[in-house]
């Protein structure tokens, strides 16, 4: 497998995951707003917090209202995390790796790109926005379906899964972080703050998995522990890192990543939200994200550098 191709596959998967995560996040948040009583809505600003997008947001908009935030997340090309930008980047990476991917994969990615490109600007009303996001989520699932069922689970697949899991671990930790910060804010009533954790589960499509594993009661510490430490849920941080580690070990030249991965895994296995203040948790997530950045760098050094 060519280093340059591995790099493109890795990024293609990261971008596709970003499309899916941003779509799910926006979808869940729109629904969350519908559930909150008038007057106590937490505002749309926190979605911009999640993607660290204040700088480019402020350049274009004054108000953090629903319309601006959604436009920024869905359609703005100068927002590197927007659905439209990520989809374009994903397509560009598929376009240059078509020879390794199943043919249907290119067609679906291209189709989704065309769909996003021609509809992203139109989704002002909630109804059309939800329809749009629904379609994006369905198509993303279809693309992954094709990849996992028609691409050999070889190096190409491993690099894609590594990209995907790194992006996913990153996004999961950001979603938790925003929930933590919203809870710390203290402006919400007690009732609203329990919604935060339920909403967190929804943004990660984790509601059913949580109920089956933990139970029907949504408790802040249980939710955070589940999202961080569950061994079987594919969006939990522990799971993402475990699969990432397994994939990296199947490749040659993985030695550099072993140590940091083992130490991250050990730290996660000792993780317990009930023993941390919200402030501590926020710091913990900060450190964790720095480690993800370092992992990305090691991936480059081990396999992509020329």
């Amino acid at each position, binding site marked *: 497998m060519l280093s340059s191709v591995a790099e493109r596959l890795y990024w293609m998967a990261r971008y596709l995951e970003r499309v899916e995560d941003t779509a799910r996040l926006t979808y869940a948040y729109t629904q969350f707003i519908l559930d909150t009583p008038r007057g106590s809505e937490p505002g749309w600003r926190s979605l911009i917090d999640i993607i660290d997008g204040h700088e480019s947001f402020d350049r274009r908009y004054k108000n953090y209202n629903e319309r601006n935030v959604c436009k920024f997340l869905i359609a703005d090309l100068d927002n590197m995390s927007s659905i439209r930008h990520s989809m374009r980047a994903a397509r560009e990476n598929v*376009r240059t790796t078509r020879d390794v991917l199943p043919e249907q994969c290119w067609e679906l990615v291209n189709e989704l790109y065309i769909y996003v490109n021609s509809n992203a600007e139109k989704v002002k009303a909630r109804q059309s926005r939800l329809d749009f996001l629904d379609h994006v989520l369905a198509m993303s699932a279809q693309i992954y379906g094709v990849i996992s069922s028609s691409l050999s689970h070889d190096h190409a697949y491993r690099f894609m899964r590594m990209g995907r899991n790194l992006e996913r671990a990153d996004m999961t930790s950001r979603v938790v972080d925003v929930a933590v910060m919203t809870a710390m804010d203290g402006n919400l009533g007690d009732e609203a703050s329990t919604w935060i954790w339920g909403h967190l589960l929804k943004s990660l499509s984790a509601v059913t998995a949580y109920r089956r594993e933990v139970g029907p009661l949504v408790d802040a510490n249980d939710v955070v522990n589940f999202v961080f430490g569950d061994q079987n849920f594919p969006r939990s941080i522990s799971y993402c890192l475990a699969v990432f580690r397994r994939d990296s070990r199947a490749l040659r030249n993985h030695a550099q990543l072993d140590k940091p991965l083992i130490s991250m895994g050990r730290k996660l296995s000792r993780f317990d939200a009930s023993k941390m203040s919200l402030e501590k948790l926020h710091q913990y997530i900060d450190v964790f994200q720095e480690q993800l950045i370092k992992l990305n760098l090691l991936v480059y050094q081990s396999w992509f550098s020329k």
Partner: protein
Amino acid sequence: MKSFWENYRSPGFFDELITEKGTARPAARKLVNHFCRLDPGEMVARGNAAELAIKEMGISFTIYSEGQNIDRSWPFDIIPRLIKASDWAMVRQGLTQRSRALNAFINDVYNEQKILADGLIPAEVVLESKDYKKPCIGFRPKYGVWAHVCGSDLVRDGGGTFYVLEDNLRVPSGVSYMIENREVTKRVLPDLFKNYSVRPVNDYPSRLYSTLASLSPRERKRPCVVVLTPGIYNSAYFEHAFLAQGMGAELVEGSDLFVGKDDCVYMRTVDGPQRVDVVYRRIDDEFIDPEVFREDSALGVPGIIRSWRKGNVAIANAPGSGVADDKVVYAFVPEMIRYYLKEKPLIDSVKTYLCMLQEDLDYVLENIENLVVKPANESGGYGMMVGPHASKADHRKFRDLIQKNPRNYIAQPTLCLSTAPTFVDGGIAPRHLDLRPFILQGKNTWVSQGGLTRVAMREGSLVVNSSQGGGSKDTWIIEQRK
């Protein structure tokens, strides 16, 4: 809507589907009947379906316009062009013969130069051509074959006879569109196939792989073949990716390859360097090796020519093959066939006037308004002039150009290019077309079933190049009922 077809005539030209009297040719009868049953609305719907399929399949080509790269969807006409298998058999033989002679010629001019010594072709035509590459002198590739992939442009005249208009021996493109055109027809007009036995075209990538694998310097069950592309901004990038995928080969750019201390070519992989046996290159000679050709080339692989000359890697087409691509050399192909193969040419070339010869030059200057003038080594239809369609000012301009550099120009009579019914502006109208079959030569020689039919979409136009607004058609080689 019968009237579409009832009123269709293409006076003065050979039409591929309809006779002069306006009836369908026997082989095309069922096809024409099928289209007759589609009303205008349905024709438009099928056309749109084809357009959508092309967009979704991502069949595109890149054009340069005002300094920008624009990715355009591939232009496609839904009415296929038909050729009887018995007619095609003759063409295939002619093309095989031609490809063998051309390769014998290239091998000769880089080695013994017998044909030049015997005076059949003026030596300066070959040796002073910018496509005669000195670094290739004295090299003998496997099987004596230099041009492994050849795309020859064929046209039919008023009587329906096939002629070769030019041979493309450098990096001919278009084969992926040949295959995709069939895919699109299968998607949007599946019923059309019911009454016909159409020869499939999708085996091309595996034929190409066999041809390339036969060139491998190492005896291996599965030699490492790569497709070398200039990158995403090349107009044929779609095709490079398509062929790499079809062959299960890596699609590489120059920076993915390097030449090791042992003068072998390697690609950079996630497992470390891996040796490459065959490079199917889709970049021009000038850019392939900055150590030998253009120093400023960032697309090529430094040292690859050294590795090739040592026999450590095969390059297809071999560097220097373009020497036979010259339109002046083209005029001598029938001579080559008689000289090298001791055979009679089975397929004709178009009468060609060489401006380097005084007699021909006089004729060309005198009759320029009736001739097609072409530069000797350009492709893509650039820099040519179609006399009858050009202005007086253009005639003057080309007379000047020719006189300044006669070696660089040839002229040919304006051909009555054949036509075929084409769906334009909501109706059926005759449009001129050509055909580019693909010839593979390695250990064996093979010719594609049909090829890429290109259509001039403007009324009366003879320019079929997609970079200049040409379209395309699916091409059917059909088996006759026994």
